[in-house]
């Protein structure tokens, strides 16, 4: 099925996207956001003790995070006596697996054209060559459906982690997180049904391609222009899915210790934490792809910048375009990661009944209304 060279490229893509981007860069950056940025927002100093060879330099506190990682590796893996040993082992892995596999469908750039690129009606057309998929692991036609399917699986990690330890705090945390995640999944799906109506596809790369169009010749046709309400619904629902503040009742420190991972230590705890951090970045990447043009840079097409004069205004070589798009995508992703952190450290925690009310009585009716209105508008025009 794969030629050896295709298989090598696939392994390279998997390695770079998961081991090179999502886990280390994502993990470090979000750890940074969680500890240093939160300190900045709350007027604290944050972790600053670790030194490299005794040199008093905080180096953005990066040594601290590396030291924490190494420390976590050599911590004792404590397991309560009457815990379910099998599921205590499986649950952290089950939490991490969806966080890794979700990245399959995120396009970091457009399909690479081996021929010449022509621009027609604000779309890149590949002439005399193949389109190679170098910037996403799998260019699935069912991309968005795959995202829904896999993010549903991440419920199992939390639920089983809570149940397996045989601790009441963990059980309550697991139940709370399960109920919260499945409640917001309904809104997540319904709010995106509107965007599916607009794009007419589930393929995330095609969505990004369509967002290269210009409305009235100047406004980039990003998803948020068509579906502003869906963006807010989706962003709130995805924030609830990541189980962090202000939706952090499943692991509310002041109520139930650490929630469903109270009894996890060492790298098992690390795996659960890592899955949440990677989830945060994934939310950023998905929101950027669906609502903010993905890898699109406004006015930039395959052969350069077009500012509406009908031709190329600033010519850019194709390799430069690809690089700019990659940078743009990562920048957009990091912006939404940052936005989540700002919200996370600004808003107080909701009460549990408020979370359920918000999910079922406010977001769900709004998302149904959004879908109905979008459908009528799309079909009327």
């Amino acid at each position, binding site marked *: 099925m*794969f030629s050896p060279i295709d298989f090598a490229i696939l*392994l390279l893509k*998997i390695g770079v996207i*998961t081991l090179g981007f999502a886990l280390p860069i994502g993990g470090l950056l979000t750890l940074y956001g969680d500890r240093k940025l939160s300190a900045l927002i709350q007027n604290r100093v944050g972790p600053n003790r670790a030194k490299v060879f005794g040199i008093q330099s905080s180096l953005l506190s990066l040594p601290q995070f590396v030291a924490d990682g190494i420390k976590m*590796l*050599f*911590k*004792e*893996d*404590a397991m*309560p*006596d*009457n815990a379910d040993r099998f599921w205590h*082992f499986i649950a*952290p*892995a089950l939490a*991490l*697996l969806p966080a*890794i*596999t979700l990245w399959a469908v995120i396009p970091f750039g457009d399909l690479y054209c081996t021929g010449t690129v022509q621009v027609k009606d604000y779309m890149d057309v590949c002439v005399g060559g193949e389109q190679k998929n170098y910037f996403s*692991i*799998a260019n*699935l036609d069912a991309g968005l459906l795959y995202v829904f399917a896999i993010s549903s699986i991440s419920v199992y990690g939390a639920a089983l982690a809570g149940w397996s330890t*045989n601790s*009441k*705090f*963990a*059980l309550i945390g697991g*139940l709370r997180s399960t*109920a919260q995640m499945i*409640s917001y999944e*309904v809104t997540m*799906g*319904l709010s995106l*049904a*509107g965007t*599916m*109506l607009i794009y*007419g*596809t*589930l393929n995330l790369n095609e969505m990004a391609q369509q967002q290269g169009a210009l409305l009235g010749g100047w406004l980039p046709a990003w998803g948020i222009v068509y579906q502003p309400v869906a963006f807010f619904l989706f962003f709130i629902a995805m924030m609830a899915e990541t189980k962090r503040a202000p939706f952090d009742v499943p692991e509310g420190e002041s109520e139930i210790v650490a929630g469903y991972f*109270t*009894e996890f*230590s*060492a*790298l*098992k705890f690390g*795996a659960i934490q890592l899955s949440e951090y990677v989830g945060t970045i994934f939310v950023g990447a998905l929101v950027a792809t669906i609502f903010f043009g993905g890898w699109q840079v406004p006015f930039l097409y395959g052969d350069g910048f077009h500012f509406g004069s009908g031709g190329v205004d600033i010519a850019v070589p194709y390799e430069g375009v690809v690089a700019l798009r990659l940078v743009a995508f990562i920048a957009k992703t990091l912006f939404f990661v940052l936005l989540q952190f700002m919200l996370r450290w600004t808003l107080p925690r909701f009460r549990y*009944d408020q979370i*359920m*009310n918000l999910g079922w*009585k406010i977001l*769900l*009716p709004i998302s*149904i209304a959004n*879908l*109905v209105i979008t*459908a009528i508008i*799309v*079909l009327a025009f």
Partner: protein
Amino acid sequence: MVDYGALFVLFLFGIALAGTIVAMATLFGKKLPNRYKKQVYEAGSEPLGDARIRINVKFYMVAISFVMFDLETVFLMPWAIVAKEFGGAGLAAAMFFVGVLVVGLIYEWRKGGLEWE
């Protein structure tokens, strides 16, 4: 098909990676268990009984509502993709379907299935 093959490879890779990380937790790290470390944490006191307790029925309600509404969402997605080709008839059918969904939501709301106190 190549894309689904890629997914398969990614899943194998993900399982291997997640398994390795969790396995490392048990491989490294000295084990010095004692009675208190092996107890579950219950705010410092001796644990009272087992945690395999009966669960509030509200969680069951949420699960049932989720299955209902999420299935309806999944049924709406294929229509949403091809809505432009289906035109008015498709819209009418989909709106009837959404109408049933809304009636179900109102019914559940009025019955108190969404209350959480």
